[in-house]
Structures are given as structure tokens and as C-alpha cells.
């Protein structure tokens, strides 16, 4: 009680001393804004001022109260400067619970270093991590950024998940003759537009927004955030003028950047022509060149020139045998050209969780380049950074989305193929010989296609034997054997196979008297994280659709007889199915368990979430069933 009084008194003093302190003290946040919130924007003013084709300024003033540890990332200020974006000034102020200023940090006190995963720096990172000895804590950020060259405008997020907003203003100021476009997403906050002489001013003023949640496995948070996207009509980056009013024009700009990057030497052209001379069709030729790329070139990240938008020349890659996604794709395009096959670059956003691309709102929000060879049917798609994908396969980081195809006539928005669970098939067959002591020898053969294959080729295939054993046991929660001997496909076969021979001192899980309890199979066939919740708001996303087919056969020694086998199980939903059949063959003393799991759809509608939970429960229950054997 004592504490409460003293805080009250102090608060009174603080408030009466300076009414301005209102937004700096965590005690003055209305209760309605604290609900589901990890942080509250107290006051924010962001202004983007477009000056001309290639220069602009972004000014930010933000006061935010961090309520708990979940929002601690908001305490970290960082900015990546590059050739085109420069952090002009920055200042951070820190306030305690009562809104008393504790510290001020200037840009000088921040840490600056060059960053870049590749060989050359991509820019300069300036950062400062505000320490929060306790919560709540209020932080004020003031900074401005200069744009020296423009390809994209900044978007404004009105509210990220778990963030409440007390008051926030976003303004865009632009010369009237240099028009731009905006698109409001996931909300309906309309701007107030003022035209004054040659200056247009757009102002979004939002108040008292309560926090919203972001559910696990619901795709990219980008697709839920209330925001306004901005895009230029005309722009200039370095010396390269561009027009963003259509995908066609964006493609023209890319074409300009790629000019004079595709020449190969004549002897190399002959080399490629010779390489494919025995191939009958264009597809066969392309497959040969893609395989050559996969076996000889390697991915090295080098962001050079025009903000990482202009590639190394095809000749460089041809000679040095390395490049980044643009350079490798552009090289393969040139090699295909050399044998008379026309292909197109695809500019795309690569991630498992894709962002929606709006056909009617051209803007640059991409991070990757692919190649495609258009065909009347079954266009060939080539991921040039992968050494493992089969010819004309994309993985889930680029499937199911729109990308910009670059043609001689500019850009065209195209769809990459949709995922298909049948492409991601895993089939496992295991034979287990059980002695009358409950020891066992087991042999298993796994065949994988698609994502499962790709993951194993990238993470598992090159491991040493002991690491492979560990991965095998850990990744699928395989019952730990006493002896394990693994062999795999020698190369990058499709399907990829893993064969294992195992020995167990004790194959059953436990016993009670003369009853022995065995698992239906030696690993978990279904292992998805589907949170239990009463009410699901957003759709549920599996990483990718797939099917698993498992056959597990126990051969029992004399003495073991079936006391009980689980009932056959069949679970059928439009988006997923599970079927399991249990059979006992007295003559061969064999229990066979056949299971087929299909996750047919990648995205499950929120309305179907209770069905998904029911699916999970029924499959899990069946996996937890035991084969009950009686020993006589």
C-alpha cells in the first residue's frame, strides 16, 4: 500500500510540473490500449518529403512505451545506410516509469560498422541498443534519412502486431508535378489531402488503435499489417531513369541495367553448342546446361553497383565460375542464348512466407532472380543458385507467387507454379525382426522427393557417417538404436534414398506382466505444430504440402501372439487425409502397419481450423496406439 501512495504522489508532482510529460510516463496509458499490447506508440510523427526524381527525406519522431520483454526489439535502434540511403541525424531519449528523462544519446554515441554477408560491404549499419533494466520504459527516437537516388518509397505501417497506438501521424509531401501512388492495405485509414501551390500534402492521422495479435503459422505478418504502400511513378537510381507506373516499364528499367552484361566469348559459345550437340530437344539442351551450371558454378553473394541491382557479366561468371542470383541467372540465360534457346529473367521475392504482389500497384519489393524458359505448356523454371534441385523445379521459397518476367518488351507479371503435395513425397518401408527376448534387427528404406529431398541434400548428404546417424535419430525422433548403419544415394538422385540397418536390445516400449507394447512405427510420421486454440482468426500455413507413406512390418519370433491391434483409422478432410491399416498374419507371425498421410493444401482457412485440430488429434491418437503382444 505504501508503494502505491508514493507513486501516486510522485505522479501528481510530475504531471503538475509539466503537462507535456503525459506521453512519457507509462502510468498515463489508457487501460483500453494496454489490452494485448506489448508496446504502445504514444506519439509519432513521420514525414516523407519527395524533392525530385532522385532525392527525398524521411523524418521520424516516435515516442514508444515498451511494456514488457516481448517487445524488447523495439529498444534497438538500427539503420542500414547504403549508397542511396543515409542516416542524417539520430537521437534517442529514455524515460522511466514516471516519464522522467533518464538519458539522451546522440548519433555520435551509436555504433557504426560496415555490413554485408557477401564479399563487399553493402552499406553501413548504425545501431544503438537501449538498455531496459526494467519495464515499462519509454523511449523517444528522432532521426532523419536522406534518399539520394530512388527506386522505392518507404511504406508506413500504422500498427505492427501487439502494438497499440495512442496517436500517430504520417505525412507525405511531394511536388504536384512529381506525382506518386499510394495503396492502403488491411485497414481503411484515408488521408487528408491538401494542395498548396506546387506542393501536395497527404496526411494520415490515427488515434487510439488497440493492439491485435499475430497467430503462429499464419504466413508473412506483412500480409496482415495495416499499412500504406507508396510507390514512385518516375524515379532515378544512379544514372538510370525509370518508370514504375506499370510492370512493363519496371521491366524496361531492368533491361537497361542488364545491358551489356550478357556477352559470352565466341569460343565459349562454341563450347556450349558442342556440349548440347547430341540433345534432341530444346528442353534436353537446357537440362544439360543447367546441370553444367549446378556442377561447375557456385553461389557467392556479391552486391556490387546500382544497389545490388546490376549483375556481373555473364563472361565473368563463365570464367570465374561463381556469382550471385542475378549473375548466375544472367549467365545461364546467355549460355542458353548461345545454343538458340530464349529464356527470361524473373524478378521475385524469395522466402517461405511470401508477400502478396498487387498486379495493379507496381512497386519494387523483390530480393531474388530466377530464370524461365516459356513453353506453351509446362514452362521451365530454373533456380540458378541451387546445386541440388532437379531440372525445372522450384522450391517452396519461390513457388505460389507472382514475379516480374523480363521480356524484350519490358516486364510482365507472371505466376510461378503452385505447390503440389505429390511433388513432396516421402515413402518409408521398415522391416523389423523381433526375437523372443524382445531384441530386434530392423532395416528401413526412405525415398524422398521434393522439399524433403532438398533438405536432406543440403543438410544431411555431405555429413560424415556419425553426424548422419545423429541427424537420422534426432530429426524424426527415431527410436534410438544400439547399432545404426546408414547408406544413401551416391549422387543427387530423385528420389533421394536413405537406407538404414539397425539393431535394438529392446524394441518394445514397455511391458506389463506378459503383455508387451510396441509402437506402430519407429518414428513420428506426423509432427506439425498446430496450436490448440478456441478461436483462430487467420489462416493456418503449413511450410509446404506433402505426403508420407509408411509401411512398417514386424516379424515376431515364436511365443509372441497378438493380444490386440489398433483399429484401422481413416481421417478424411478436403485439405488432408490420414489412413492407417493394421494386419496380423498368423502364418508368418507378421504385423503390418500401412499409413498414408497427405497434407494436400498448404493453407488451411481459419474457418476450417477446428477441422485441422480434429485432424491433428485423430492422427496423434493413432500414432500413440500400441501393438499389444502377449508372450506365451
Amino acid at each position, binding site marked *: 500500500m505504501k508503494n502505491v501512495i508514493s507513486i501516486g504522489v510522485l505522479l501528481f508532482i510530475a504531471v503538475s510540473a509539466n503537462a507535456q510529460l503525459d506521453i512519457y510516463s507509462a502510468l498515463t496509458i489508457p487501460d483500453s490500449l494496454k489490452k494485448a499490447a506489448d508496446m504502445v506508440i504514444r506519439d509519432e510523427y513521420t514525414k516523407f518529403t519527395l524533392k525530385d526524381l532522385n532525392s527525398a527525406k524521411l523524418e521520424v519522431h516516435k515516442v514508444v512505451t515498451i511494456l514488457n520483454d516481448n517487445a524488447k526489439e523495439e529498444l534497438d535502434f538500427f539503420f542500414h545506410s547504403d549508397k542511396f540511403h543515409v542516416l542524417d541525424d539520430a537521437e534517442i531519449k529514455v524515460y522511466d516509469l514516471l516519464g522522467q528523462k533518464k538519458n539522451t544519446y546522440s548519433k555520435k554515441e551509436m555504433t557504426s560498422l560496415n555490413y554485408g554477408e557477401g564479399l563487399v560491404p553493402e552499406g553501413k549499419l548504425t545501431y544503438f541498443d537501449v538498455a531496459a533494466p526494467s519495464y515499462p520504459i519509454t523511449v523517444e527516437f528522432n532521426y532523419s534519412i536522406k534518399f539520394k537516388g530512388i527506386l522505392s518509397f518507404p511504406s508506413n505501417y500504422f500498427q505492427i502486431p501487439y502494438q497499440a497506438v495512442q496517436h500517430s501521424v504520417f505525412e507525405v509531401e511531394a511536388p504536384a508535378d512529381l506525382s506518386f501512388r499510394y495503396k492502403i492495405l488491411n485497414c481503411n485509414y484515408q488521408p487528408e489531402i491538401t494542395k498548396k501551390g506546387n506542393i501536395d500534402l497527404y496526411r494520415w492521422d490515427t488515434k487510439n488503435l488497440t493492439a491485435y495479435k499475430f497467430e503462429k503459422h499464419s504466413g508473412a505478418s506483412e500480409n496482415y499489417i495495416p499499412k500504406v504502400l507508396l510507390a514512385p511513378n518516375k524515379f532515378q537510381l544512379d544514372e538510370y531513369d525509370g518508370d514504375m507506373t506499370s510492370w512493363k516499364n519496371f521491366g524496361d528499367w531492368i533491361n537497361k541495367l542488364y545491358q551489356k552484361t550478357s556477352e559470352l566469348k565466341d569460343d565459349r559459345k562454341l563450347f556450349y553448342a558442342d556440349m548440347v550437340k547430341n540433345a534432341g530437344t530444346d528442353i534436353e539442351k537446357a537440362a544439360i546446361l543447367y546441370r553444367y551450371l549446378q556442377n561447375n558454378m557456385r553461389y557467392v553473394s556479391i552486391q556490387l553497383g546500382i544497389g545490388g541491382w546490376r549483375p556481373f557479366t555473364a563472361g565473368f561468371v563463365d570464367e570465374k565460375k561463381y556469382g550471385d542470383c542475378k549473375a548466375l541467372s544472367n549467365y545461364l540465360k546467355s549460355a542458353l542464348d548461345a545454343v538458340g534457346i530464349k529464356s527470361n529473367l524473373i524478378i521475385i521475392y524469395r522466402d517461405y512466407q511470401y508477400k502478396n504482389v498487387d498486379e495493379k500497384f507496381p512497386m519494387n519489393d523483390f530480393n531474388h532472380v530466377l530464370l524461365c524458359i516459356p513453353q506453351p505448356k509446362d514452362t521451365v523454371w530454373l533456380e540458378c543458385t541451387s546445386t541440388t534441385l532437379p531440372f525445372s523445379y522450384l522450391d517452396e521459397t519461390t513457388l505460389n507467387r507472382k514475379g516480374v518476367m523480363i521480356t524484350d518488351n519490358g516486364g510482365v507479371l507472371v505466376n510461378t507454379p503452385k505447390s503440389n503435395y505429390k511433388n513432396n513425397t516421402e515413402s518409408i518401408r521398415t522391416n523389423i525382426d523381433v526375437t523372443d527376448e524382445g531384441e530386434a534387427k530392423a532395416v528401413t528404406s526412405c525415398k524422398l522427393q521434393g522439399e524433403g529431398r532438398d533438405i536432406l541434400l543440403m543438410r544431411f548428404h*555431405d555429413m560424415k557417417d556419425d553426424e548422419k546417424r545423429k541427424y537420422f535419430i534426432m530429426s524424426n525422433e527415431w527410436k534410438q538404436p544400439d547399432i545404426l548403419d546408414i547408406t544413401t544415394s551416391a549422387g543427387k538422385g530423385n528420389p533421394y534414398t536413405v537406407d538404414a540397418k539397425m539393431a535394438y536390445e529392446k524394441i518394445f516400449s514397455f511391458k506389463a506382466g506378459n503383455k508387451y507394447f510396441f509402437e506402430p512405427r519407429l518414428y513420428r510420421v506426423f509432427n506439425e505444430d498446430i496450436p490448440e486454440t478456441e478461436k483462430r482468426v487467420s489462416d493456418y500455413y503449413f511450410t509446404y504440402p506433402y505426403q508420407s507413406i509408411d509401411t512398417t512390418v514386424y516379424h515376431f519370433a515364436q511365443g509372441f501372439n497378438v493380444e490386440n491391434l489398433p483399429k484401422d483409422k481413416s481421417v478424411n478432410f478436403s485439405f488432408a487425409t490420414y489412413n492407417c491399416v493394421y494386419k496380423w498374419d498368423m502364418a508368418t507371425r507378421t504385423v503390418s502397419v500401412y499409413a498414408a498421410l497427405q497434407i494436400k493444401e498448404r493453407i488451411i482457412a481459419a474457418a476450417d481450423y477446428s477441422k485441422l485440430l480434429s485432424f491433428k488429434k485423430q492422427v496423434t491418437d493413432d500414432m500413440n496406439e500400441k501393438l499389444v503382444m502377449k508372450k506365451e
Partner: protein
Amino acid sequence: MNLYTLFTTFLIGLCLSSTAQDKLPSFGQVDKADLEMKDCDFDPGAEAIVLIDVGELKFAYVENIGWLAEVNYRVRIKVLKASALNRAQVKMAYYSKNRNQDISNISGVSVNLDGSGNAVEAALEKKSIFNKQIDKERSEVSFALPDVRIGTVFEYKYKLTKKSFGTIPAWNFQQSIPVRYSAYNLFIPEYFKFTVQMTKRQEMESKQDKYKSAWYIMRNVPGLKDEPYSTGRDTYLQRVEFQLSKIDAPNYYYEKGTWTKIIEELMDDEDFGGALKKKVKGTDDLEMQLSNAKTVREKIRIIYKYVQSNMQWNDNYGIYSDNGIKDAWDKKNAGIADINFILIRLLQNADVDAKPLLASTKENGAINTIFPFLRQFNCVMAYVSDGDKRYIMNAADKYNSFDEVPYDVLYTNALVVDKAQGGVVGINSDGKYSSRIFFTVRLDADAKFSGNATLNAAGYARNIRESTYKSSKLKSLLEDNEGIAIKVDSISVKNEKDELLPFEQNIQFSGAIQSSGGYFFLPYGLFTGMGKNPFVEDNRVMDIDFDYPKKFVITGSYVLPENFTVSDLPKNVKMLLPDTSIVLIRQTQVDDNIISFRFTLDFSAPGYAAESYPYIKEFFKKMYEVLDERIVLKKK
């Protein structure tokens, strides 16, 4: 700690015998056998082999600059698998401030076999070598060797120049991939005397040639990877390290000798002893709290908690102050040294006997007490005395109690830095990790249940559990059980503020038990958080480190409804290692409709030598089998 074998450490002076270095193929000249090689014969399955790894260090006196250390490096790698391709992207950071270090004379070459079996070279071009500044102090040279694929042998060399002469870089003979030939050559003027420390588990040749240069050579060194429950790979790498002990030059004499001398230097150092003299301002609230303290112990506790809650650790280790304790206190964010300097300073202000303690965390490796190498340490903690009672405290750790020795320096040696009473001390403690779980589960006629549990986390378990709770991860941890689906309906905690009492969690939960074929299964190990067996690998190189002794006690009872009965009374189990350092006991009892059991698991040793691995592995396998056992019920 006698359970650990100290891995072989040798200390010798730089007096060596015998012949000089082996003849190596010249740069870019690769044997056909190496180009055709498909696997590593002494470490099968490796993704690549370092065929040659050579460093040659010389000291040179340069007019107007002084002594320079110059190291010429040469690395030759054979790529065996695709996962090693990124090794042909080379990045080397160096300390470029004031041109203290510089990298030059870089050249590189890749060698492949062409279709007709001839060796073809591709040279690294100068223009493909990048030199970028990382921050104010460091720069990085980076390049990608051309034409590297599976089967390629690539090679590069460079020269590193350093203005300082007081240190000789250590040399790792061992890496994550196998090394076929590794040699370190030192050519040191006779004025400089260094002592040498070797860490090895296989033969290391030391030679001296006619020019008085010393060679350290190892051959066929297998790769070393991380292993679970170990103090970290770095402390196990086979290597050789050096420390300057004496300079005996004309007109110059320097001897770095004793711990006493090191302590004196440290106390006079502006960033160590000097840092401690600075004032920490704005601690009136602390003074208020201290005015109520009746004993020294209470004072220690108050000050420790004050610094612990006010300061945020930036994850940096180190033994010197960064920008002084004033700046650290101002920003409330600092490295381990500054946070503990503040702690020491505030303790001293309150007339508590507090001294800086130089320590080396287990991950940093054990220090060698015989040779006073300052570089062995990686952190400062507080060494506090209250009569006969000693406290070792690290206020950078958010949850550790003032009364508990920080686990990462437990059983190590450390240096108390004090001109009068300093010296090396061994850090010991009888602290352990203790987890006690009591639960009652009431089953209904449909095999659904409700239950309640009390979990007590004491000792080292306390801070781990409290941090799980504070980061809102406790619920999901408690719901993660093998063989039963548990939903935690409520959690309340006790003694959160009083770190001298166990952290008590009271939970209500519900769920349904698993069943099959008319049988129902009850697990023993609820809420243990023991997960899956970590020891699945066949072999092990590093010692097993459990950090501290651990004890788990689970006391549980299942109350059955009328219509259920136990199918077969489970056996009592007692399992122990021959030396009784791990004991597992499970006793089960059935009275009417109540099954009660007690499950204790006592690890009385904090760790084991690598040679014990087969026994530990076997014990863990059996232990997890016991944990996986179920009480089997059926309906009447």
C-alpha cells in the same frame, strides 16, 4: 573436479632440438593423387581436407616504426563435398586502426583436373580481392577463389604485419575439418623470450633448424566438431600458445613474471585499477535501501541486486573497462567488466571487502596457474569477503543469486586482484541444481484427468526456471511431456523476490491419458523437461560437462476411479553407475485406488572424462528407457 582428466598440457621453454621443416610442394603445384583424391583417409567422410596449413612468423626492426611481427600464411584445401564450397570464399578480419595490422601479398590459385586428366590452374585476380573497413578499428580482406567445385584443390597465401611484438599469435593445428599437414615456424630474435603451452592428444613435432627458428608440426589431425554437454570446442583444439616472458635487449630489459607483478600492473592500469577509482553517481535510492541493512550479508545482497537489476549486459566479455564505469552506469548497458567494476565500487563504498576477480569461463578454457598469462582470462567478477564467508558474484547475470557461485566459472581457477591479498584461488561450491516435483492426478471414468503440482527449483535450477518463467515460456515447457497430453490451466509462483528460497510454481492442469486396445498408460516423469536423450553419437572426444551436480525428485500419485485397475504392478528400479555418481531409483506402490511413486535421479558429479562416455551413454539410454516406461491400467 578430479573426475575430469586434464587434457595433456605441456609447458616448455623455447629450447628445441633436431632438424628443420619438411619439403613442401611449391605454391600451385598439386600432386595428381591429391587432385584425384575422393576421401580423407584419416577422417573418412570429411567435406574437405586442409592439405597444407603453414604460418611463418618473423620479427623485424624497422626504422621509425620499431619492431614488427610478420606472419606469412599459406593454406591449401581439397574440396571433397559440396558443403565445403563456401570455404573458397575467404574472409580475414584484421585490426587496421592506425595501421596496426595490415594484410598484403595475397595470391590464390585453384587447380582442377580437366577432361583428359591434366592439372589446370585458375589464378585469383588482384581486382577480385576486396578490402573493406568494418568499423573504426577493424578491416576485412575478402575474396572468392575462381573455379572451385567438388574435387578442386585451392590454395592461397598472404602476409599479416603487426606493429606489436609482445604477442605471438596462437596456432591451431586442429580445425572443424581434417588437417593433413600443419606447421608453425617462429623466428624470434634472441632478445625475446616466450613460454610455450601445448594442447595435444597426438604427436606434435618440435624442431629447431640451424637458423635457430622453431617449428611445431602436426600431421593427420582429424576434424573436431561440437558435442552436447561440453565446455566448447575451442578449449579442445590441438594447438600451441605463447606468452612473452622476457625481453633482454641492449638498453632494454623487461620481465613479465609473477602473478604479483601482473596484479600490480593491473591495479595501475587506467582501464582496470583506474576504473575502480571512478565514482558512480545517482545511487541515492541504494543508500536508502542500505540504511536498513543490519549485516554485511544483507548489504552484499542489496548491492548485488541493485546492480543486477539496473544494468543490462551487452553480452561482451573482457577484463578491461570499455569507456569507464561512469559511462557504463549512465548508459545502463555495459560489458561484464564494467558491470562488475560498478558492483565492486558500490560494495567498497559500503565498506564491504570486495576485490576484482579475474576469471575464465569454462567456454574460454581452464587457466594454467603455473604460468601467469593474462590473456587466459575473459571476465571480471567480484570476490567478496564477509568474515570467513566468500562470495563470487557476477551482476551481469540477470537471475543468479548473490549466494550462488556463477555456474560458468564453477570449479575453475581465478585470480584475485589485490596488491596485498591477491593471488590464484580455486572456485568451488557445494551448490547444485535441485528440482523437486510433487503432483497428484485424479483420473475420471473416461480416462480424462485433472491434477495439481508443486514444483520447486532451488540452487542452479532456480535461476534457470525463473528466467523461463520471466520470458513467458514456462507454460509451454510444462506442457511438453512424453506420453501424455497435458494442458496447464493455471500457474502461480512463490518466492520470486526471495532468491534464498526455492522458486515455487503451483500449477493446475488437465488432459486425457493415452490408451490402446483397452489398456491405459500413465507416465512417471511429468514436468521434468528432460526431453530426448542427448547422447546418441557413437564416439566422443570432449569431456562431458553437466556444469554442476543435479538432483531430480518426482513424487507423484495417480488416483484411479472405481472402474480402473492396475494391469500389472510395475517393478521397482534401481540403477547406478559403479562409482555411484549417478543413481536412479523408482519405487511404486499401490494402495486401494491410489498409485504413488517416487522417482529420484541424482547426478552427484558435475562431469566426466571423455573416456567414460560409453558408460554414460549406456546409462542415459537405460535411463530414458525407464522414463519411457508406463504404468499400465485396464478397466475392471
